[in-house]
């Protein structure tokens, strides 16, 4: 299920439409993750305030989405391009890779809610494949 030429074109085209709102998309996606999948809060036990509207969640959502934006520019070589992020997730963060799927789903929900006309089924499948590929690249160094 690797990205073909059409997938990459669709991802880049759609991303250029939504990139301006990346920070808000990130914040919203992370907020939804911790509300819809409360077990994900275990990774943020070091934050005093883990509520969906907290400054920590907003800031971290922005960071995560920044990573996604970067991945779009490295779409032709995600494994190579995301190497240091992969090491970070493998050796320091050690986020269970199952959670990548949960966050992907939340990102897709936010994209659908905020860009209903642009988030067509064709764009949806390309973005789903792309985020799955990013997740695979991030899990590359786990074992």
């Amino acid at each position: 299920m690797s990205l073909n030429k059409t997938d990459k074109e669709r991802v880049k085209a759609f991303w250029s439409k939504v990139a301006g709102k990346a920070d808000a998309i990130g914040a919203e996606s992370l907020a939804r993750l911790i509300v819809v999948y409360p077990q994900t809060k275990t990774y943020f036990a070091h934050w005093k305030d883990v509520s969906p509207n907290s400054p920590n969640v907003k800031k971290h959502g922005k960071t995560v989405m920044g990573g996604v934006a970067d991945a779009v520019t490295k779409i032709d070589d995600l494994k190579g391009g995301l190497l240091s992020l992969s090491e970070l997730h493998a050796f320091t963060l050690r986020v269970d890779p199952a959670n990548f799927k949960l966050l992907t789903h939340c990102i897709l929900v936010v994209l659908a809610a905020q860009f209903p006309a642009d988030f067509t089924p064709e764009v949806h499948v390309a973005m789903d494949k792309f985020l799955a590929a990013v997740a695979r690249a991030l899990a590359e160094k786990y074992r």
Partner: protein
Amino acid sequence: MVVWSEQERSIINSIFASLDYDDIGPKALCRCLIVYPWTQRYFGGFGNLYNAEAIKTNPMIGAHGIKVLHGLDRAVKNMDDIKNTYAELSVMHSEKLHIDPDNFRLLADCLTIVIAAKMGTAFTADIQAAFQKFLSVVVNALGRQYH
């Protein structure tokens, strides 16, 4: 037994009370067939599914989408016993339709996304949580009688 808060019940009832089945049903099923193409395996007799355009304009798929969405009505009316409400349907999906129960989860995810697109910012995190909880109970019930 699944415990529903008053807020969750209200959210689920509200979503389904204002649901346009004729619009959402076809959209959810089409999206599932396009985003997860292996689900097309169950639609061999449904005519042209050759590409996304064909799927979106296929009247048999559209009609089936509406039918499947209405299938959720019984769960909405019997939220406190979805497991038993769907026992027969579960047997049917297993013995007659031979559908891999993982597909129920895929369709549920597509339905969530279609509803999100329809409701926009009104589809808050709390509403998403309640809706996904409801769908996961349905998905679980539909897979329960497989053997």
